């Protein structure tokens, strides 16, 4: 099978959907003439023209709201945030307009649109460019939140997101755009809200999603050398969450470690932990553990980034603790 970059998988998804449906358009900062801040939309202006690949001024609140208004009136916008860190100035339109419109209009105005861009940290970018927002958006009814971890999932899920009639938050990572992975030729869709068991194992379940999955795989490889077979569940979607796949895995392994690049309070790991204790209490042979980021803003220095982030070593340590090894 051919191998392409994460950014190319996203571009294929966008381009295929724009060829398929003239109501789909891409709008955001630097998406057109600059070819995308991270080159996701490279070449798309040439193919689709400036009616459908639209550069905006730096005005996230304004263009997010214009996207929601366009969705109310029959279009299917894809709004790119250069990073979800900038979505904070647009969050009124995401939460108060996009997420609530169908409900407060009594079912009259659907919002079939996608907000997409990178989330969380990407090295030494300092405090204001490094926050993870998955749990923020996942908290809000009306939204769906997708966080793919590889090019194959990214393409299939982005196509599904664009075709979905609900507003979808689609979160990527600067540290994934160059990742390569197998993506078949031709069209395919992946279902929103279905987790994927990325690695089979019997001793412990590791649940994660998005970029930090890479640390989980590295940890599992090391653990395997010591005879510990970890099962890795990739949530892929954090609203809705596929609890059944997680619970089924935990009932088999009897141990759970949740890995998440996010602050700990009221995080996705908190939610997973609640649901597993409620539905699989009698199956647990050890307390559920989690690895999150440190409960602080991310500082610049490399030593502090290292200390802040989840990584394979931290995962290995905690897995061994739940294995009582």
């Amino acid at each position, binding site marked *: 099978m051919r191998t392409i970059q994460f950014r190319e998988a996203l571009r294929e998804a966008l381009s295929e959907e724009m060829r398929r449906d003239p109501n789909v358009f891409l709008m955001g900062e630097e998406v057109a003439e600059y070819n995308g801040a991270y080159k996701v939309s490279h070449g798309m202006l040439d193919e689709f023209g400036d009616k459908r690949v639209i550069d905006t001024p730096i005005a996230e*609140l304004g263009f997010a*709201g214009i996207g929601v208004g*366009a969705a109310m*009136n*029959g279009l299917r916008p894809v709004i790119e945030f250069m990073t979800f860190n900038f979505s904070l100035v647009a969050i*009124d339109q995401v939460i108060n307009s996009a997420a609530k419109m*169908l409900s407060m209009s009594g*079912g009259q*105005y659907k919002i079939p649109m996608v907000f997409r861009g990178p989330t969380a940290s990407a090295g030494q970018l300092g405090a204001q460019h490094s926050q993870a927002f998955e749990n923020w958006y996942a908290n809000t009814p009306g939204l769906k939140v997708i966080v793919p971890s590889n090019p194959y999932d990214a393409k299939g899920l982005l196509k599904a997101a664009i075709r979905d009639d609900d507003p979808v938050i689609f979160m990527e990572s600067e540290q994934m755009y160059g990742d390569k992975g197998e993506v078949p030729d031709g069209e395919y869709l992946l279902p929103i809200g279905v987790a994927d068991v990325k690695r089979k194992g019997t001793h412990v379940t590791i649940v994660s999603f998005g970029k930090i999955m890479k640390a989980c795989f590295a940890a599992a490889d090391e653990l395997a050398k010591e005879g510990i077979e970890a099962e890795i569940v990739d949530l892929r979607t954090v609203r809705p969450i596929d609890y059944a796949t997680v619970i089924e895995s935990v009932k088999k392994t009897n141990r759970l470690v949740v890995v998440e690049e996010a602050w700990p309070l009221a995080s996705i790991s908190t939610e997973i932990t609640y649901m597993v204790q409620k539905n699989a209490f009698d199956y647990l042979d050890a307390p559920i553990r989690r690895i999150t980021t440190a409960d602080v803003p991310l500082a610049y220095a490399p030593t502090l980034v290292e200390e802040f982030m989840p990584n394979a070593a931290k995962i290995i340590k905690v897995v061994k603790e739940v294995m009582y090894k």
Partner: protein
Amino acid sequence: MAKTKFSKETYLMWYEQMLLMRKFEERAGQLYIQQKIRGFCHLYIGQEAIAAGAMSTIKADDNIITAYRDHVHPFIKGVEPKYVMAELYGKFTGVSKGKGGSMHMFSQPHRVFGGHGIVGGQIPLGAGIAFAEKYKGTNNVTLCYMGDGAVRQGALHEAFNMAMLWKLPVVFIIENNNYAMGTSVERTSNVVELYTLGESYDMPAAPVDAMSVEAVHDAMEIAVAHCRDGKGPYLLEMKTYRYRGHSMSDPAKYRTKEEVEEYKSQDPIQRVLTTLLEKKYATEAQIETINDKVNLIVDESVTFSEESPFPDASELYKDVYAQEDYPFIRE
């Protein structure tokens, strides 16, 4: 001059529609005190000429969106008052199935894109609705209403900039009743002539005496034609006044009784009534007939609302997602 160019029928329509808005809102105020209507409740009394003056300038495919002082805007597009009243009651027969309430009046068949509750939030939405019309190649115009308080939000400036940059067919209409809740326009900025805010973006703009329905009509006609011709957005500052407080819980102690009385002496409905009688477009008896008709519509809207059911509890999880089988967390 302006007063002579409108037909008798137009004046009669304006009188009836403005009186309907007035009587509807007066009844809403009474029903609020009786606790039939709950939540927040912002009345339009005094501002009727803005809505009525637009009615004579737009067509069925045009769009409107506004903020939370939104009870009568649906009338502009032909929504029957009883469905708005039922929404105020929280009944399932309301325009938004009782899920919106006072601040969220929507009617998709009438291209009413809502009442919105976050000050200024509807301004980018209005630009986006217009963006879709331009994208689809129609010549439909979007009317985007806002209060004077909203013009101080960043959303306005971002939306104005992009609306001009992309020549979107949207008329931005400031309903300047001089108070953002309790804060006067003068206390919110050095720039108090609000139509001049368009100048920063080269947006054509004009102030309007919005106590005069004729003046509103004239200004709207120019602005709507400008948009329909593909020339981009237009800004109108409607200088108006609300007789009541910001909401039902506001005693309006920030202004004098004399100020309120001064505006009431220019009452837009009274002005149209005077014209009708002076020009002998209608007799006293014909006016009484209209008054009775309006009162009957309001009475019937109350009866309809009283007799309508609240949404069933099973509605709670409906209309949250377009997806029919969304797996909500139940515990």
